[in-house]
């Protein structure tokens, strides 16, 4: 019994300690940033990231530190990472828009099917956590509605139950779709940002391939296949090519 309690205390202490380290690093980085040592701040934030932690604010601050250290590509990457965790992070959105002005490649977007963009904006209304718990809540509502429908002693009660169930099914579908969409983006990220000042896009995954076009730091691409050290990319105007995978980083 006594042994067990000691182990328990040790476990609690360990978890507390583990919770303390990223906090102190975060504060330290904030001080370094305030003192104008942006590179140092970025390194400290990276340390937190390497420990396996993430937070929208963390990536947002990393974006700021990158921009101040004159690395707009990394700034765009980190702002995107922050927005991936919290699509409603207004500061990250505003800074991303600002930093994007410094980007060399201004690509035209291929107009996409309106439902797709509509769903995209719907899905990005809430973070993954919110969607997943919303889905759970609506699932509960569906079941409750069904119960009311089955066991309602009056007709009006049955009708209400039916309506609740029907509406909840709709919302549940949206929420779980959004959650799964977010989840897949996190588990299998496809979006990436070019980080080298400029990279030649080849027609095939080898350096002997024909040069197709040149992309610059900060441009966002979608990644497809990986072949060795090469990755197939697709830019927003629909062009496709291969670049070395070290020249980009996924969001």
């Amino acid at each position, binding site marked *: 019994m006594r042994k067990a309690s000691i182990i328990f205390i040790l476990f609690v202490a360990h978890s507390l300690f583990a919770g303390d380290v*990223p*906090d102190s690093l*975060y*504060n330290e980085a*904030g001080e370094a*940033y305030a003192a104008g040592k942006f590179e140092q701040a970025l390194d400290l934030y990276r340390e*937190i*990231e390497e420990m*396996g*932690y*993430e*937070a*929208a*604010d*963390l990536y*947002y*601050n990393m974006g*700021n*530190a990158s*921009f101040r250290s004159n690395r707009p590509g990394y700034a765009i990457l980190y702002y995107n990472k922050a927005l991936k965790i919290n699509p409603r992070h207004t*500061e990250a959105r*505003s*800074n991303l828009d*600002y*930093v994007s002005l410094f980007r060399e490649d201004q690509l035209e977007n291929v107009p996409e099917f309106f439902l797709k963009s509509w769903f995209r904006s719907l899905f990005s209304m809430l973070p*993954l*956590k919110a969607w*997943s*718990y919303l889905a*759970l809540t609506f*699932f*509960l509502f569906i*079941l409750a509605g*069904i*119960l009311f429908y*089955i*066991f309602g002693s009056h007709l009006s009660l049955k009708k209400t139950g039916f309506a609740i169930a029907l509406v909840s099914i709709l919302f549940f579908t949206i929420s779980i779709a959004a*959650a*799964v969409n*977010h*989840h897949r983006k*996190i*588990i299998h990220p496809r979006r990436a940002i070019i980080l080298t000042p400029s990279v030649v896009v080849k027609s095939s995954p080898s350096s002997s391939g024909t040069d197709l076009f040149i992309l610059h730091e900060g441009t966002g691409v979608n990644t497809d296949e990986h072949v060795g050290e090469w990755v197939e990319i697709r830019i927003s105007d629909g062009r496709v090519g291969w670049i070395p995978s070290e020249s980009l980083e996924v969001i």
Partner: protein
Amino acid sequence: MRYYKVILTFLVLLGTVHLNARNSGFTASAPATVKTGQQFQYKIEGSQQGEVILPQVKDFELLGGPFTSFSSSTQWVNGKMTAKTTASYIYILRCNKPGTFTIPPAKVKVKKETFETNSVSIQVVGEQVSGTTGSNETQTGQQVQSESDQPVFLRILPSKREVYIGEQLVSELKVYTSVNTQPTSGMKEVPYEGFYKHTLDADQNSSRENINGKPHVTQVLQRHILIPQKAGKIVIEPYESEWAIPQRVSRGGSGFFDDPFNDPFFDRVRNVPVKIATKPVTINVKSLPENLPAGFTGGVGDLTMTATLNTEKVKVNDALSLVVKISGTGNIALIGAPEISFPPDHDVYETIKSTSISTRGNKVSGTVTFEYPLVARHAGNYRIAPVKFSWFDPSSETYKTIASSEFNFKVEKTDSIDAQGQIYMPGSRGEEVRNIGTDILDIKRSVPVFSTAGVTPLSGYMYWLAYLMMALLFILAIILLRTYFRQKADARLTRNRKASKMARGRLKIADRARKEGNSEKFFEETEKAVWGYLADKLSIEVSSLSLEKVSEIIKTAGVSGELQEELQKIIEECEFSRYAPSTQKADVDVLYNQTIELIRKLEQNIRSK
């Protein structure tokens, strides 16, 4: 011929060896004191022409010479002719170290005789403070060398040869003449490229100067104040003008009459146009020291500044103006407007610049006024930071800064109607919040809640387990609810089925009471039996039963009005007879039979529904 030469050489040697020590009137003169590095004239004068042999003077540097000049005059006094000849030899010397030095006697060889001059002692003092005069004199000396024999020459004489950008200097164009001359046409102004120039009045009167011992009439033709605009060596290019110079023209011929009539008096004099050019003059313009102060706008000189705000209280949309006045001696016209940080949110209009320049004592001085008009757009208290003005003072070679006090003004609200006939409301012009600068937003400082990277709620089994649990609970709830409702229904059914049986049991008790003659108990039990039957049959609690409720329910159950009335009659009779005196009591046997009949009929009617 060779013989003759030998004799000549001999004679010369003889003359040299037999030095004639007597003083034949050759005198050497030089200034008693000179500064180190300064050029001075060493002059030997005598009454005869000869060959001057300078002694070795290693302390001095010979810069030029001899410049020889002769003059002769013949006078007739009382029939007696006195001829006087003067010869002078000028050397330009310089000494580079202080001390007292003696120039030993120089020798002058006149024909076969050699004369000796006196020795001259010169005191050389101190460091020379300004290099400008020295170089000035170099120029003069060179000019003397080349020009002094000319009858007319022009010089450009700058007051300084080394100035800072923007520093004033005076430059004169001066003519030196030993003959009666005048320019053939009107003279252009010296262009002075690279300078901002300001014309001064030239001299009206001529004066006399001795140049190289020769008397010259001099006159300043043009006088300018120059302000250099760029750093570096600026060369004032040769300036050319044409002068009519009188020249003697011999009456020609080389005949017999030459000698007696070879006299200037008899020569014809003719004016010949001659182009005369100045020598290029170099001015070394130094750039201003590096550490430009913040409020520097190009002012160089001896300046001062005052700033005033015309009012301290205005209404919205009224104009006010800040006036900055810079005055003094210097490059007034070239001073730029000092930068003033007005409070934002005001309309600042173009600065109005006005200059008044006067030249006094060969210096440009005056006042430049900058007026900054601004219109207040919003009510409030505002502050204008102190106006700072910096300029370069060439005399002390430092920057100087003067600052005004800060200005505060109050803008009051107005309800006046503006030009468009509209009441001006703040923001009514749809003015957007203007960005003064753009930058990224600052970092977030409060520590966020960290989550594990790459892990989502969906990737853990707990989330899906929650769905499973909910589904299981749902199924469980359905099962439980279903059995509950079934049991409840079953209970009702049983009650219903047993209703008449129960009623009959109660009526038996009533029957026993009837036989015992206990009418009170009989009525009580009969009523109970009816209510109990209705409660069981209609699945209603006895406590919530009432006559109205029952009649309503059995009506919907299809029971006829006749039967309802009967039910009502029996219940009312029971209630009444229970407490009524025995005389008014209903007939017990009839009621008993009626009750049995009612229950039988109800049983039939409700069931048949």
